[in-house]
């Protein structure tokens, strides 16, 4: 590098690129979050046909479209959880406790986290890729040139759809995980349905469902903001689309797992919350 080039000056005083990039990413996501919250509120207060239609379209794509995947995966997760819990507890002669654990574990953890991971796998890459491809194709510029905010027309409908779809899918998944647990307990472990339901009722509380649904709302917001930000902040190049999709999946997974850890820690460390 030449001593007097602008690059050499900026390199001497600049913040290290890695830190600048992470900082820039946080600022960009923060801005997007504020914008999305503003337009979500606007959507509720003053819905316009063209945006409401967008929300409906997104609910169909992100929610209804994921139903089959979530349903089949949830039954399998119920079975897997039953086998895992039963095999661990066999050593203590407490195999029967698998029936007891499945209800609250499904509602508090497996349901919301499983659905979030499935939605990330299915839709986060799609969302980021869609926005990145719109950027490369000039659609985002066209929106801005018309004085239209891409966050209002693209991000807010997706976020609204995720905020409806994820909690709904979580409740469905909770039920189907328990159904998988019932199959595991009755068909494979040999317990009666009466015994399973008795154990399930003894440990399960409706509050568990509220905790799970609350988590899914947080997860929906994280997935929506990160996937959208990754898609919207790419350069206008076709090869950026794949990168945006990959980064969206990675950061959505990290974001959801980090949020889940924090929520679980809060419930563990603050007495009375559980």
């Amino acid at each position: 590098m030449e001593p007097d080039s602008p690059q050499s000056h900026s390199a001497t005083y600049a913040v290290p690129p890695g830190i600048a990039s992470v900082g820039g990413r946080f600022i960009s996501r923060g801005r997007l979050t504020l914008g999305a919250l503003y337009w979500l509120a606007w959507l509720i207060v003053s819905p316009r046909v063209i945006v409401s239609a967008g929300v409906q379209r997104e609910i169909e794509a992100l929610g209804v479209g994921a139903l089959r995947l979530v349903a089949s995966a949830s039954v399998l997760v119920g079975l897997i959880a039953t086998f895992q819990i039963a095999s661990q507890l066999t050593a203590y002669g407490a195999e029967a406790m698998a029936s007891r654990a499945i209800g609250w574990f499904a509602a508090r953890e497996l349901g919301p986290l499983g659905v979030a991971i499935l939605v990330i796998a299915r839709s986060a890459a799609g969302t980021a890729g869609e926005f990145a491809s719109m950027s490369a194709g000039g659609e985002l510029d066209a929106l801005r040139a018309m004085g239209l905010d891409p966050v209002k027309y693209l991000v807010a409908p997706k976020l609204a759809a995720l905020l409806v779809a994820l909690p709904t899918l979580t409740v469905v998944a909770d039920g189907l995980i328990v159904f998988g647990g019932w199959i595991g307990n009755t068909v494979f472990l040999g317990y009666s349905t009466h015994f399973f339901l008795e154990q399930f009722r003894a440990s399960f509380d409706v509050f568990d469902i509220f905790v799970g649904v609350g988590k899914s709302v947080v997860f929906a917001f994280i997935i929506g903001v990160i996937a959208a930000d990754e898609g919207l902040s790419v350069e206008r190049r076709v090869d950026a689309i794949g990168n945006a999709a990959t980064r969206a999946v990675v950061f959505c997974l990290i974001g959801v797992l980090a949020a889940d850890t924090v929520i679980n820690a809060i419930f563990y460390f603050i007495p009375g919350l559980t």
Partner: protein
Amino acid sequence: MRGLTGPADRPIIVDIDLLVRRGETQVVLGPIQCGKSMLMRHLLGLERAERGVVFVDGEEYDPTDGNDGLLRRLRTRIGAMFEGSALLTKLTAIENVELPLLEHTDVTAAEARETARELLAEVGMEIAGEVTPAELGRAARRRVALARALALRPAVLLLDEPTLGLDPHTAAEFDETLAALQPRHGFGVLIFSHEVRYAFGAVEHIYVMAEGTIVEHGDRDAIQHSGHPVVRQLVDRRGHQ
């Protein structure tokens, strides 16, 4: 616009002066990658300029200060058609045209639909039912994009490579549609293109751009007889087409 230079951090276009009057068609002609699209992005406020000033219908906009309110207002007076149409693929063709009306005017959804239908008819598109951009051909998508650009009755229309990839007959039809609309709506047109046919077409003024700046400008005759090497290279290319 006067003395437009930008983007702020790494100027690609330098000291551009340009005037488009209502009712006139002007062309920024230049080879690919010479900065034409960047110039259009600056005019629309999609890039922050280093210096310069833009006037739209007498109202001044300083593209270096990012005044969002003024920019939003000016954008309603500049219609833009991007290269490749840039229609929103999740919306139908008619919804694409309705969008600026629903955002910037107080019309009802039914009125916006009716206006959109009229605009589409004006650009030669009779769309029945819910047709998405993906179901339309390249030329039809351009016409829908033109209708969308006209939705807010702009003072000036910016068209980036409007006939790129169209066969000569379809391109001529598009030019005719534009020429027919201009007196009716009274907008000025600024076309950004590398297609040298514009140097021989019915346009009032041609700006030849190279390496981010205007190297020559004038009417059709002046450009055809210019001795500037970039202009000669462009104009002489026509003999090979």
